[in-house]
């Protein structure tokens, strides 16, 4: 079984572990993730602030290429890429003239036939069905599922989960044996692209997220977005500075958590690449 | 018995056309052979088993305009169409079944009242018959008293010879007049047995025996059984060379219009409905029975003709394969 795959810059760069864990999961299910040939930047996070045509043309080209390659399901693990691709498909499908114009720009026909899957979609559609019998080691931890902004908004376009109090990650976590905590920062801002330019703002925003997760006694933060991950993980030093304490709470991709439950090797899941070491308490290791 | 060479047929056509006749002949187009008015001999298809529609339209067209009417303050006035202006028509290449069919058709239109439109068209009609050298499984002329080489109804009858020439039989005075006008086209025929030239159609039942039997079958359950799949359309009646039912319609506006008659079918549920909503032929089996009884019981009784010449068109064209010879064979068997 082949499924289309759009890596985007993050998972091909700074968040390689996200791609690795996706591929590891896919491998466990006999799924081949086939990258969109000659893919380009999706335009996040700046293009749509600068030039509408460009912001649409970039994702449109990706989608057209995917269509051309005969991909019907397209996994887009990065929430920002997912958001851009979905918005573009939405805009182009409702306006024929715009579709024509953009097609002229990209030089490729756009049909809108590709079904764009975020990582949770993908898990729900391809991974969940056989999940219970595949679990080797229940992921028996308290987890704070952090959705961020791009995965669930704007609801009108994405039509995914409920935007104010999303539940889909929590449901997935329950299935692998984890206990999601009830907390208040599921969709609060992590600071996003300010990660580079204004680390102090990121420290403040992400710090509050980390603080509440700790307060709710979570063993790990679960994320589905490389940007969230980098802010919560890579900027931990700044966060610690803001919180004035050292927090060891690991930040784990949903794919990595499932991978652990399936007994996939830590290295294959890229767990060694994190800034905050993923040292989960031993209890889970013992349980079967 | 004469011979007409195949290269002389255009000459015959040319003579008839130059005499002002409209020539109604089998033409192949859109994948079917149909009788059409032609303007050149080349249009004609001489080798066919059966046309889609019969040749009856030459005398009983699907629309026959009867009169014009006007409505004025002073009252209404009528102006019938002038039958004297009807053109002479040659039905060219009618198989014996089609040629024979004009006789029962004529019996209807001249029964007690002479229909002036029909009779005028018949008077103007010249029929050049064409014996059958092939047939298909729907053909059953021999079961209803027609033969693939029959000359009944034809004025001149052609029978194809293996080499492409035709035997020509001059049947009627109308035919003789034509032959006399173009004597050069006809030469003496070689001694041939016509029976050997025409096809042989298997006889499935005897129509006289059928007539005798069907007369008493009005209340027989076979109608219900046979008519179950009948969809009540008019395909069989419209392709039939003998079915002669028509409807009369007025079309126009508030100041006048015209009256015409057009083909109608006893298969339609509305055919016999009364104004009150009562319908004496309320179900399809009674309509089916009417069709067969009319052809094989009532017409022979009253007009001494059979309403069927075995052309098989109704069976070929029925959307639900109501095969008349199959049904009649079954009726003979019950």
């Amino acid at each position, binding site marked *: 079984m082949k499924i289309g795959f759009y890596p985007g810059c993050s998972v091909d760069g700074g968040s390689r572990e996200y791609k690795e864990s996706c591929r590891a999961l896919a491998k466990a299910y006999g799924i081949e993730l086939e990258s969109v040939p000659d893919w380009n930047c999706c335009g996040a996070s700046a293009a749509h602030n600068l030039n509408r045509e460009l912001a649409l043309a970039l994702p449109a080209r990706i989608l057209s290429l995917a269509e051309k390659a005969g991909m019907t399901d397209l996994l887009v693990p990065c929430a920002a890429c997912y958001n851009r691709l979905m918005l573009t498909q939405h805009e182009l499908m409702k306006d024929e003239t715009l579709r024509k114009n953009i097609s002229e720009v990209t030089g490729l026909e756009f049909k809108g036939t590709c079904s764009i899957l975020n990582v949770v979609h993908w898990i729900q559609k391809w991974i969940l069905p056989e999940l219970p019998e595949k679990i080797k080691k229940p992921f028996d931890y308290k987890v704070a599922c952090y959705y961020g902004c791009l995965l669930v908004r704007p609801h009108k376009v994405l039509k995914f989960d409920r935007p104010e109090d999303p539940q889909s990650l929590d449901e997935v976590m329950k299935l692998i044996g984890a206990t999601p905590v009830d907390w208040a920062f599921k969709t609060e801002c992590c600071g996003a692209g300010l990660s580079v330019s204004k680390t102090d703002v990121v420290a403040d925003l992400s710090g509050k997220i980390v603080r509440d997760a700790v307060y709710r006694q979570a063993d790990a933060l679960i994320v589905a977005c490389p940007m969230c991950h980098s802010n919560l993980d890579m900027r931990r030093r700044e966060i610690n500075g803001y919180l004035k304490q050292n927090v060891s709470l690991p930040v784990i991709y949903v794919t990595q958590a499932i991978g652990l439950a399936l007994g996939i090797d830590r290295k294959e899941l890229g767990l060694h690449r994190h800034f905050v070491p993923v040292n989960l308490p031993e209890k889970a290791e013992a349980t079967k | 018995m004469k011979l007409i060479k195949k290269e002389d047929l255009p000459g015959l056509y040319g003579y008839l056309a130059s005499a002002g006749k409209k020539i109604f002949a089998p033409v192949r187009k859109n994948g079917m052979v149909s009788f059409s008015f032609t303007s050149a001999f080349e249009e004609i298809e001489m080798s066919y088993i059966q046309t889609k529609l019969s040749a009856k339209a030459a005398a009983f067209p699907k629309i026959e305009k009867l009169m014009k009417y006007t409505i004025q303050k002073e009252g209404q006035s009528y102006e019938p169409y002038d039958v004297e202006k009807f053109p002479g028509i040659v039905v060219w290449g009618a198989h014996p079944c089609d040629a024979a069919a004009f006789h029962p058709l004529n019996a209807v239109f001249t029964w007690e009242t002479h229909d002036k439109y029909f009779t005028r068209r018949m008077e103007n009609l010249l029929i050049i018959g064409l014996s059958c050298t092939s047939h298909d499984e*729907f053909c059953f002329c021999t079961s209803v008293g027609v033969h693939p080489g029959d000359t009944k109804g034809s004025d001149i009858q052609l029978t194809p010879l293996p080499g492409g020439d035709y035997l020509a039989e001059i049947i009627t005075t109308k035919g003789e007049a034509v032959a006399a006008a173009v004597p050069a086209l006809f030469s003496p025929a070689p001694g041939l047995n016509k029976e050997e030239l025409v096809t042989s159609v298997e006889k499935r039942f005897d129509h006289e025996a059928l007539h005798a039997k069907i007369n008493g079958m009005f209340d027989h359950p076979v109608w219900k059984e046979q008519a*179950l799949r009948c969809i009540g*359309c008019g395909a069989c009646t419209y392709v039939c060379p003998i079915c002669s039912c028509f*409807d009369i319609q007025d079309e126009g506006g508030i100041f006048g219009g015209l009256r015409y008659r*057009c083909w109608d079918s006893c298969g339609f*549920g509305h055919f016999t409905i009364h104004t009150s909503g009562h319908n004496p032929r309320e179900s399809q089996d009674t309509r089916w029975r009417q069709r067969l009884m009319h052809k094989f019981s009532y017409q022979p009784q009253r007009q001494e003709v059979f309403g069927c010449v075995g052309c098989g068109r109704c069976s*070929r064209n029925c*959307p639900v*394969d109501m095969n008349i010879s199959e049904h009649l064979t079954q009726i003979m068997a019950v």
Partner: protein
Amino acid sequence: MNKLKEKAKELLSSGAVQVVVGYEEGTGGKIRPAFVSRPEDADKLLYNADCHHNLALYLYKHETKRIGKMAVVAPPFVLRSILILTTEFQLEEDSLVVLGVTPEEELIEFANFKEIETWVNQHPIGMKEKDREMLNRLNAMSRDERWQFWQNEFSKCIKCFACRGTCPMCSCFRCTVDYNAPQWISVGSHQLGNFDWHLMRAMHLAGRCSVCGQCGEACPMDIPVHLLSFQINEDIFKMFGSRAGLTLKKESLLSTWKSNDVENFIR
């Protein structure tokens, strides 16, 4: 195929139904509707891709209903027709046993019409290649060419009403063309009368057509009348996102509306 025969036998011998409406081999290599009332006759039933008659036609006719309870051999287009007829109160669920047959010639039994609804929604009917090509050809024509195409086709029409007679959706006892106060549609088969007839018929089927194509099959003059319905069916899907015969909800396309129906031609 054997399953179908066995099932028919079983239904007839148990008295569950009095007649099985199906297909049988006819004359001249044609296939035709069959009405089997005795278990021993069930062997003549058949089903294959050439079975084009829309048997739903017979399910509400009083001539067939008087035999008793019916079972019907139902390819996908018959299933759709059954749903449409049910929503139009022409069929009752408990008067009918539906023996579904798939394009793969497998028998599927339905416990109720709800199951048919589910099944037909999961199994779209593809258009025949020949019809698809014809539609493409028509769409590629200029409007005048289309006019000419249909004028030529309609000139063949003899108003035998086989298209109407063979269509289950033409369930009216009295057709508009039979109505004479006023005579909306000319009875005679002249060019205007033929055009009006086919336009009217296609309109009255719009949103109600199960797209079986039987009207075109039935035409003795080989007029592809079904293409009118096929094309508008595609157009309707584009405009309203719906196809007929996929629901038991009593809402026909033209008897309902939405306040946000999108058109671009009303000033």
